[in-house]
């Protein structure tokens, strides 16, 4: 029993980050139909910048968080304005995917330049003994990660459903023309979607770094796995990414636990391929044809 629980906890930890990246993917996808393959880089930005402010400049915790999120939001904004907006009109899918890949390499290069290849970490948010539940250990930071992820999900839900701005963004994702007719500035919604997904990624990075450390090149793997999470849950479905992320984390953990730890990484990809080939809409999605939205 304790073995199962331990695997579960381990899976929840990694699953949280996958879920956050997946949510970020969905937000951008919903407003633009673009797959932002640079999504994972924002997690790295969150972790490294947090270290920079907290440990490097010895600023207080809250200030560091605020500054880190500001940096992440600014970078997301720059990415959208400089590379996405000019090309979106062309409606060329291939181009957009390539651009996000190019930007991810660029961000990685910048991070390497500033932070080199070393791993960085900072102390957990609260120090103390880990909890023991039925023989399985769960550290306080793990609880923080799961808690922060849950909190973010709730906040996003409220935003998209209860605020005017959020509902405007939702409208864009459902029907561009109608949204425009209602007077919604679509271009601003796109910008906002990038900023929000950048923030979501950064939050994940800030939370996970005390557990797993952070280095400049963790982004690629996170992008791929976070994307798998989004696909499993159904691209574009908010709930889907959450379920997908946690499912993925837990399945990886169980594979390592009960089968063979060497195959852990393949799990994410195999499941994703399986879903793509047999139920492309994912767990929650409806089978709909894919089209690039025209702006």
């Amino acid at each position, binding site marked *: 029993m304790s073995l199962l629980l331990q*695997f579960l906890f*381990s899976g929840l930890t*990694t699953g949280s980050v996958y879920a956050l990246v997946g949510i970020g993917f969905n937000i951008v996808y919903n407003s633009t139909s673009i797959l932002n393959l640079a999504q994972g880089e924002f997690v790295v930005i969150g972790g490294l910048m947090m270290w920079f402010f907290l440990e490097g400049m010895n600023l207080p915790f809250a200030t560091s968080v605020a500054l880190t999120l500001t940096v992440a939001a600014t970078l997301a904004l720059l990415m959208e304005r400089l590379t996405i907006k000019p090309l979106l009109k062309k409606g060329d899918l291939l181009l957009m995917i390539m651009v996000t890949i190019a930007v991810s390499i660029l961000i990685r290069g910048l991070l390497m330049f500033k932070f080199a290849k*070393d*791993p960085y*970490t900072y*102390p957990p948010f609260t120090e103390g003994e880990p909890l023991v539940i039925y023989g399985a250990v769960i550290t306080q930071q793990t609880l923080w990660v799961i808690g922060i992820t849950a909190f973010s999900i709730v906040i996003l839900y409220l935003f998209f459903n209860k605020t005017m701005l959020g509902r405007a963004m939702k409208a864009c994702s459902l029907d561009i023309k109608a949204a425009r007719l209602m007077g919604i500035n679509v271009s601003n919604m796109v910008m906002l979607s990038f900023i929000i997904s950048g923030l979501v990624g950064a939050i994940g990075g800030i939370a996970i770094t005390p557990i797993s*450390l952070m280095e400049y090149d963790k982004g690629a793997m996170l992008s791929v796995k976070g994307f798998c999470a989004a696909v499993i849950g159904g691209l574009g479905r908010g709930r889907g990414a959450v379920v997908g992320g946690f499912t993925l984390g837990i399945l990886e953990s169980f594979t390592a*636990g009960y089968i063979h730890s060497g195959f852990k990484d393949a799990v994410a990809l195999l499941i994703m391929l399986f879903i793509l080939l047999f139920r492309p809409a994912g767990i929650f999605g409806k089978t709909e044809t894919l089209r690039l939205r025209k702006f």
Partner: protein
Amino acid sequence: MNYLGKLLLIILAFLILWTSPSYCKEPYKIGAIFSVTGAASFLGEPEKNTVQMLAEQINKAGGINGHPLEVIIEDSKSDETQAVLAAKKLIEKDKVLAIIGPSTTGESMAVIPIATSAQTPLISAAAGASITQPVKERYWIFKTAQYDTSAVEAIYTYMKKKGIKKVGIITITTSFGDAGRKALLELAPKFGISVVADERYGPKDTDMTTQLVKIKSAGAQAVINWSVGPGQVIVTKNWHALKMGIPLFQSHGWGSKKNIELAGKAAEGVIAPLGRLVVWDKLSDKHPQKALLKKYVTDYEARYKSEPGTFGGHAYDALMIVVAALKNVGPDKKKIRDYIENKIKNWPGTGGIFNMSPIDHCGLDMTAFEMVIVKNGDWEILK
């Protein structure tokens, strides 16, 4: 000035130029291939820094028998194809007398056929046994990093002394981890030890509690982790959080203060076989390696504001061995090779005391390591 005066002046100038060191004698060119960037940059960067620092020191002191030392450093970017290109460039374009490096076993293997067919001595800084074995096919190839098998032997010898019979191993899925895993599995029976769990993880994994829990439940009396990079720290933190109650052993890749720093109090009690470079200040003054280790570490830290680590030391040894050869036999590739094979005996380096021979092109064994435990955030040699 009259005619005679001008002539004397010219002769004087000529004499001055002729006798002034380093400006008239041909430089000795050595090539170096390091993984300065890419996945193995934690190896390549200190190696590159070390070689640059040493070359400068040597040249300031007058070079090698008056010849300036020129080390041409190429970055393989931790990629075999680039290592191959670098080796070809150094041999064909720069016409180097010998090559130091590469930093990783994989790259070394890729470069071996090139060095061999170009009959150029290659002194690798990587650990893989296949680099220098079978010796018959490695006539031109040497290495300065200890064998992974030696590190494993050091751990197992210690474990046998302490009566540990069952171990769980957890290794990273890179060539470093893979080589360690093979050695751990192969050598265990020789020490009466059985490996009850064989777990693995990837370089970018964030949590290893699952694997550690499996090891504990398989009845292991100790855990051995074989990796370099953040994986070592994560495993340590997981081990500590789980309160596993059984000792954690690390590979010789553990030897960096940064790891203790990153792992915090979780590192307390972790044991590893480390090159003496890491614990130079704990050695007795009579130890043959102490003086050179002290100088190397203090010089490096003063210049680069970070510790060289044992990996930088492999480059140190490789370069100094070639320099020793050059000093004695001059710029002849075959003679350099012969010198290294036959004359490097009881030769103190950073990695250990080298004893090269026609049947051993590495020259180090398990005595190159000290068993070290982390106590109060610092290293302590275990007796």
